[in-house]
C-alpha cells in the first residue's frame, strides 16, 4: 500500500503532463513544454535520490532508504520520456541524425551518456542482478554520481543568457557530491 502511494506520488508530474497534453493546457508549443518538464523532473527526482540517505542518516529514518530504488526507477522513467520526446519532436526519429547530435552538440552527449548509465542501472536494479553482480553491483550503481554530474553539465550548457535555474541545480549537485565525499572520508578515517 505504502509502496503504491510512493509510486503514485512520483508519477504526479508525468500524469499532469499527460493530462495537460490531452486538454491543450501546455501552451503554444506543448512539444517544448514536454521536453523541458520531463527534463526538470528527471533532475528533481535525481536530487531526491541523493537527499534520501542524507535525511535517513540525520533523522535515523532507515525506512526512507527502501524507497530509493522506486525513486531511481522514476528518474529513469522521466529521463526516458525526456529522450523519447527529444527524438520525436526535435529529430522526428531520424536516427542517422542522432549520431550527428551526439557528436556535435556537447549537451546531447552529456544527456545521452547519462541516460545510458541510467538504463544500465534500471536493468540491473532487481535482486537477481544484485546477487549475480555481487560487489560489482555497488560499483556499477555508484555511477549515479556521474549521472548527477552529467545532468548538471547538460543543464548548464543550455544557458543562453539567464543562468538562475541551471546554476541553482548545479550548486545542488555539487553540494550533494561534496557531502558524499566528506562522508566517505569520515568513514575511512573511522575505519582506520
Amino acid at each position, binding site marked *: 500500500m505504502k509502496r503504491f502511494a510512493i509510486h503514485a506520488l512520483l508519477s504526479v508530474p508525468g500524469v499532469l503532463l499527460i493530462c495537460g497534453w490531452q486538454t*491543450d493546457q*501546455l*501552451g*503554444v*508549443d*506543448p*512539444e517544448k513544454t514536454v521536453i523541458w518538464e520531463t527534463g*526538470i523532473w528527471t533532475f*528533481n527526482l535525481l536530487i531526491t535520490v541523493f537527499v534520501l540517505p542524507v*535525511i535517513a542518516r*540525520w*533523522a*535515523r*529514518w532507515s525506512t526512507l532508504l527502501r524507497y530509493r530504488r522506486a525513486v531511481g526507477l522514476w528518474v529513469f522513467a522521466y529521463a526516458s520520456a525526456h529522450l523519447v520526446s527529444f527524438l520525436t*519532436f*526535435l529529430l*522526428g526519429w531520424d536516427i542517422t*541524425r542522432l549520431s*550527428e*547530435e551526439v557528436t*556535435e*552538440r*556537447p*549537451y546531447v552527449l552529456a544527456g545521452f551518456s547519462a541516460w545510458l548509465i541510467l538504463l544500465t542501472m534500471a536493468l540491473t536494479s532487481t535482486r537477481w542482478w544484485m546477487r549475480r553482480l555481487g560487489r560489482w553491483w555497488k560499483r556499477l550503481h555508484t555511477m549515479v554520481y556521474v549521472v548527477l554530474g552529467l545532468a548538471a553539465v547538460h543543464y548548464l550548457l543550455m544557458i*543562453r*543568457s*539567464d*543562468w*538562475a535555474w541551471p546554476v541553482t541545480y548545479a550548486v545542488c549537485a555539487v553540494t550533494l557530491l561534496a557531502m558524499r565525499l566528506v562522508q566517505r572520508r569520515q568513514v575511512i578515517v573511522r575505519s582506520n
Partner: protein
Amino acid sequence: MSRVTDPHTYKRRRVLAAGLALSAVGGFTALRYGERLTAGAGQVQGYTSEAPRLSGNDKDAAASAGKSHRLTTKHAATHYNNAYEFGWDKTDPFRRSADFTLSPWSVTFDGLCHRPGTFDIDELMGMPFSHLEERVYDFRCVEAWSMVIPYNGRPLRDIIKVVEPMGAARYVAFTSVYRPDELPGQASAFSTLEWPYVEALTLEEAVHPLTFATFGVYGDRHLPQNGLPFRITVPWKYGFKSPKFIVRITFTKDRPNATWHRENPSEYGWYSNVYPSISHPRWSQATERRIWGDGDIERIPSRPFNGYAEQVAHLYPGSKQQYR
C-alpha cells in the same frame, strides 16, 4: 559533539525533514509555475480592434515569393515570443508587457547621414497605419522553430532614403529601448545580456526591398511582445537579427557589434543568415518546427536564406561560412 541523541530528537527531525521536503516542493512549484499559472487574468493580450486583412500588396508579395497563404494563428504568434527584454521564457513577453508604454514613440537617426534627426513614429510611417503595406513573411528563429506572420509596414529603404546616408556609411546599427522599470529582463540580475539590445545590418542589407520597417502584425499596432511599436523584419536571417522596440538608427563606417554576437560569437554569427547546412552548436538547423497554432506544429526541412535565396543570395558572394 553529542554521541547519543535521544529518540525524541529523531522524531522531531523526521517531522522537520518532512516539512522541509513539502516546502521544497511548494517553493519549487511557486517559483517555476506560479507566474504562468496566475497569468492571463485581467491582462490586455493584444487588441483585436483591427481585424487581420490580406491586402492586394500582400497577395502579390506572397505569390511572387511562392508562399502559401496559410498563416500562423494570431494567438500563437502573440503568446510565444522571444523578447529577452521581458524575460527568457517565451511566455514572458505577453505576460509582462501589459505596462509597456507604446506611445509616444520616436526614433533618432544619427551617424553618417546628411539629415540626422528625431522622428515621431507617425512620421516614419508616412501614412495612416491602415494604409501600410501588409507582407506575409516566414519567420525563422535560431531555435529551429518558425511561424508565418503578416507584418504591417513599409520597406526600410523608403525611410533610409529620407535621411540620406553618406557615401562612407557601410553599416546600420539599430538600438532598442532601455527601460528597466518597464522591461523586467533588463532589470534581471540573472541575465548576462548587455542592454540595450543592439543589432546591425550592412547598408546593402538594410536597403534591400525585403527588409521591412514594421509597425504592426496581424493589423495590430499594440503588441509589444512582437517588438512593436517599431521593429525591423529581415526574413532571410534568424529572428534575433530583426531588432525590436527600436529607438535609434545609426549609420557607421565600421561594423557595429550586435548583442547576441557579442554574447557568444561562436553560436550567433554576425550575419546569421539561415543556412540549413551549417550546424549550430545548440540546434541542428536542417529542419524547423513550423508552429501554425497552439499545439499545431509541423516539422519541415529548412531552406537556405529561409526560402528567400532567390532575392538575397547575390548579396553574399564566396564561401557561406563567412556569412553564418
